[in-house]
């Protein structure tokens, strides 16, 4: 059953387009990865879903969650959803926690808001949650202040806080990129374990292919505010069809694979907001660009059975041949 359906989502900031018509769906319990370099609009997409866009931003299109369009929902209704049914974990653990409030209170806060629990009951729940995230001595952690915890601990606190009410959709914006590699793996496992335990759906936003490969069933590749390719993770990473995805995969140092003298890089660099060419946004850097690329390609794919939306699709007039 589709939990979340995003249809032609557009986000403009002060008149400049940052997300140009993004559509995708997330099913119950499904773990979807949203890959893209910084500036691809992936964070804005997540914020649009949560309704937490910065003041200067305007969103249009539809974001349907269990039949309701979040974009048109009034703030109070959204507040009832956020933290209860839909939760989010942010990138910067250092600044995402209130420095003057104890960690326990911040984890317990969703319980206070949505379950109306007393402070003690919510606090006990929070300590349990922290324990489940394998934090040693959760009681003292709960009493501590954010500046007394390490980056990894803080990220786990944020995750605990997000999962406090057992949401059915968790958005995670680069949850581990600020952590060093060893801690990253731990936190990812916890995140995945927690999500699976509660049958929650996960929309994981990252620029790290390895993270997506290890965590997500479906993957969406974003560039210049658009989804350029979509499909099952293993399938897309093994046989990328869009030149940009191809470039991304090739640029990824495969520790196991053949040792290459020089990693291939994508030509040029990501243009600033509003600096993308018309038509296919990647065409100015695409080795396979053809003159049809001046027209914006549509995300297309062959459905396995008639009438079903295809799980595997690509938005390119001259995709990489399927070997």
């Amino acid at each position: 059953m589709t939990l979340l359906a995003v249809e032609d989502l557009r986000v403009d900031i002060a008149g400049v387009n940052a997300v140009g018509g993004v559509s995708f769906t997330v099913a119950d319990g499904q773990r979807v990865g949203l890959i893209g370099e910084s500036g691809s609009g992936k964070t804005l997409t997540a914020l649009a879903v949560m309704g937490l866009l910065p003041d200067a931003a305007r969103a249009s299109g539809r974001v349907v969650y269990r039949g309701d369009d979040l974009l048109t929902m009034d703030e109070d209704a959204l507040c009832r959803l956020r933290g209860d049914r839909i939760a989010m974990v942010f990138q910067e653990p250092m600044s995402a926690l209130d420095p003057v409030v104890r960690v326990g209170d911040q984890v317990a806060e969703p319980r206070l808001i949505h379950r109306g629990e007393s402070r003690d009951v919510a606090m006990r729940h929070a300590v349990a949650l922290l324990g489940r995230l394998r934090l040693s001595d959760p009681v003292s952690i709960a009493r501590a202040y954010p500046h007394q915890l390490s980056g990894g601990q803080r990220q786990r606190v944020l995750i605990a806080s997000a999962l406090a009410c057992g949401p059915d959709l968790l958005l995670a914006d680069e949850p581990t990129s600020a952590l060093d590699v060893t801690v990253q793996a731990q936190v990812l496992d916890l995140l995945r374990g927690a999500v699976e335990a509660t049958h929650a759906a996960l929309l994981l936003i990252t620029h790290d292919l390895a993270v997506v490969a290890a965590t997500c069933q479906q993957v969406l590749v974003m560039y210049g505010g658009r989804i350029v390719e979509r499909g099952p993770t293993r399938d897309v990473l093994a046989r990328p069809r869009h030149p940009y995805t191809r470039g991304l995969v090739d640029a990824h140092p495969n520790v196991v694979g053949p040792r290459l003298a020089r990693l291939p890089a994508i030509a040029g660099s990501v243009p600033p907001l509003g600096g993308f060419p018309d038509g296919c946004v990647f065409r100015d850097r695409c080795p396979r660009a053809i003159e049809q690329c001046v027209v914006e390609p549509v995300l297309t794919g062959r459905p396995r059975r008639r009438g079903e939306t295809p799980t595997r699709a690509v938005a390119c007039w001259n995709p990489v041949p399927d070997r």
Partner: protein
Amino acid sequence: MNRRRRVPPTLIAGAVVVALVVVAALVSLVWTPFDPRLADTASRLLGPGVEGHLLGTDQYGRDLLSVVLAGSQVIVIVGVLAVGIAAVLGIPLGALAAVRGGWVGELVMRGSDVMYAFPAVLMALMLSAAYGSSTTTAMVAIGIAYVPVFARVTRAASLQVLTRDYVLAARAYGRRSPYIVVRHVLPNISSVLIVQATVAFALAVLAEAALSYLGVGTQPPTPSWGRMLKDSQTFLDSAPRLALWPGLAIAAVVLGLNLLGDGLRDRYDPHAHIEGRP
């Protein structure tokens, strides 16, 4: 995201008002409709427009418009020099406290605390008792009283800059503290200091008015808006306009300076903390 780079309206409004005052000050040095110091007792308390006096005359028969125009000179002098003194003494102290830290920092900060015990008013009283009341004593008193403010702001802003990587890098290849302060710290906190200067200028104008009220500010026959406001009080029933014009002038200048400060702050450094002292 270049919206903020556009010059904010507050900056324009503030700059216009301040420019007007400076122009008035310069023009009045050379020309005013009448001699602002000529007290022609025969034509006392004339209404606006009478005998060519656009705004009328004051209780001593001086042309009100000329006196108000000439009054802007004191405002510019007191403002610029008072802020100058505060900056010239305060900024190095603040930078020193930030760079050296330790007991030097503590000494500077505690010293500035002690200075807070001497508000501009008290400083002016002492100086006027020693050297007679005049624009200079008022200016020096206000300047000294604001040294702690500049020291504190400079130190706070410098501490932020000192943690930045490019400073660590400079230190890495052996740059000595004074060079770092001049080359890296000051340029980067200049926006904060400019904003602080405009706020201090505005507060200096108000302080001069307060000192004139107590009789230790600018003395006759030099025209001063603060003193005019004070002297006009006893004429409130008979000639309220005597109080209107200097009051409006002071309000306009302070408003202009604050708008200028806000505009600069929005334009250059939106996150700067303004510190000022009443």
